[in-house]
């Protein structure tokens, strides 16, 4: 058994590129992944230590990947990275057994970029086939999780999806479920948005376990209607999202006091009013005599510029007059 790897990111020189890709992953499939992750507009919560984690089938493969904002920037913006491993669908069952281990070891097994010393020198290449790693489930941290939701999920898997909070509790629950032998291969998106999942579903990619950035408590939701069918009402989030300081739902002691205070609506309005439009050359800008013309205006101008066609002598000569009469009788000019 073996697996392949992939690394999708950008450098300053090259836009979003499949720098490393499994041999049989097509351009269309790479494009499907790009379009889906494009719908995750805010990656500021995601770091290599606390990435979003996905597992789903696509084309010939089942992909396990992590998504985070790298420390690299382009035009002042953080560059996102997607990296992970791809296993042939024929080996999906064997892969499912090792999944909890891979998740626990994501920083080594999914960390394809660790070998890249210079992203600017990186050229697109096909992944090598890597031998299957030793997987020891003893290395997977044991999770102290409420079994009632797992029990409910086992019975309702065909009809419901499981929603988990995007925090340490949610990750522990995810690992526990993946380690439960009663489940078949499960696909998940841990740390995502509805728009990303909607985009993946365009390419027939469905997941069983979902964690949106704003999911607060575990629940089962209908696959058809998305309504909650079962909820852990006594669940109390015990672990905050990581990394905590950047979270908009962070507790007061996590607030960065050095950050510039956000403006109140009145302050924002005052700031807006203070600005004098006369100071803004763009606001003053007019195209003037160089203003663009519409196609019809351009056509009329071109016609007006055409030299006049000299008048013929049809009207003056007898032959011309006869020709005219004949043409009119035949209905031609």
């Amino acid at each position, binding site marked *: 058994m073996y697996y392949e790897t992939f690394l999708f990111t*950008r*450098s*300053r*020189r090259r*836009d*979003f*590129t499949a720098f490393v890709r499994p041999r049989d992953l*097509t*351009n*269309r499939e*790479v*494009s499907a992944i*790009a*379009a889906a*992750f*494009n*719908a995750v*507009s*805010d*990656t*500021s919560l995601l770091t290599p230590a606390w990435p979003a984690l996905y597992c789903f089938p696509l084309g010939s493969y089942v992909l396990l990947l992590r998504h985070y*904002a790298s420390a690299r*920037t*382009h*035009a*002042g*913006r*953080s*560059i*996102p990275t997607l990296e992970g491993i791809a296993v042939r669908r024929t080996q999906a069952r064997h892969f499912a057994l090792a999944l909890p281990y891979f998740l626990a070891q994501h920083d080594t097994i999914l960390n394809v970029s660790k070998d890249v010393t210079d992203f600017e020198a990186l050229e697109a290449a096909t992944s090598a086939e890597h031998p299957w790693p030793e997987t020891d489930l003893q290395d997977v941290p044991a999770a102290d999780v409420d079994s009632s939701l797992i029990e409910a999920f086992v019975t309702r898997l065909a009809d419901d999806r499981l929603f988990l909070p995007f925090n340490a509790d949610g990750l522990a629950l995810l690992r526990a479920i993946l380690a439960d032998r009663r489940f078949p291969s499960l696909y998940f998106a841990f740390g995502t948005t509805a*728009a990303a999942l909607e985009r993946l579903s365009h390419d027939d990619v469905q997941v069983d376990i979902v964690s949106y950035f704003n999911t607060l408590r575990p629940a089962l939701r209908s696959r058809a209607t998305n309504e909650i069918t079962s909820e852990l009402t006594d669940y109390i989030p015990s672990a905050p999202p990581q990394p905590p300081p950047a979270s908009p739902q962070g507790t007061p002691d996590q607030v960065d006091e050095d950050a*510039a205070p*956000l*403006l109140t609506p009145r302050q*924002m309005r005052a*700031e807006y009013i203070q*600005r004098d439009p006369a*100071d*803004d*050359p*763009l*606001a003053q*800008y*007019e*195209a*003037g*005599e*160089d*203003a*663009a*013309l*519409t*196609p019809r205006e*351009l*056509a009329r101008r*071109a016609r007006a510029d055409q030299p006049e066609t000299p008048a013929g002598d049809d009207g003056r000569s007898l032959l011309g007059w006869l020709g005219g009469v004949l043409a009119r009788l*035949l*209905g*031609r*000019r």
Partner: protein
Amino acid sequence: MSLKITLFGGSGQGKTTYTLALLYLMATGIEGFRIEAEDANTATKYLNPWRDFVIARRWPAPTMGRREDRFRLLFNNEYITDFRWVDYQGGAVNLPTDESDEAAQLHADIQESNAVIIVADSYVIATRPTMEAEMLTSSTYIFNLLNTYKFKEAARGEGVHSGITTALVLTKADVLPDEFKQNNYQALFERSREVFRGVVDFVEEQRARTSSLRPWLYPAAMIPVSIVGEGNAAVLSPGQGYDLATMSLENTPQPVNVHYPFLYAIGNELDRTALYLEEQEADLEARLARMNRNVLNKILRGRTVGQLYEERQRVAEKLQTLEPKIRAVTAVANKKMRSLIPA
């Protein structure tokens, strides 16, 4: 009636932020114009990153892949037209189609588009040597694509009626050196014409009287825009090589001129439709005149004459419906857009 507008440009030129600002402005309405997305989720998808930009002052993440959405344009709540908006990552311009599905789709989208909006960083155009600016804005790649799919096609005599409207959006105009802002941005326009000379030369040649093509089918114009507004962003580092300038957002963004290129693209396409209708009307008129001159025809082909009258009536009605819409859009946009061809 549905128009297709494709937005593209080199990497890091400001496409994503421009799109977010445009859709934010148009969703709420500006100068009487408003757009409605196909569904509420579409608008939300665009508004969320714009909110992060405004409140958290975080530049939106670079676009990956391709995004296509459907909208309706309204003026004073009156329907104008449907349109499809297609947005690309910068890399799609510089990759061969066998390496990237986005590149393949971009080529197809350009072929099908009524109008293209090209986004180019005016700071790059103003501050980098010409050849570097050409490469960073991808102007040469862009000309190559337009030439292959729109210009050459017309030169071969195929699709002579198709044409395309080109709007060049010069982003980041607020941080331009002062000399490029003077004289109504004259120096910027001159530099932009130089950097995009492939497109400029083509459109200019088509406007020469010797051309067998119909030059008015290739309207092209440009405009400097700012997403953040004058004095609201600062250049932290000017950039070098592949590194583009890094800018910080100092105050709440106030987009300026953002909606004009979009309205220009729509207005010109509606006007082009009207042009075809006028030509159709003139042709019908000529055929009717010929029929009416001949008494025998009137008797033998009375039915045909009646059908031609009806057809002419339908064309005239379509034109009548279109006229106020065209006036509404072009009256606002065209006075701001500067022709790509120097006067």
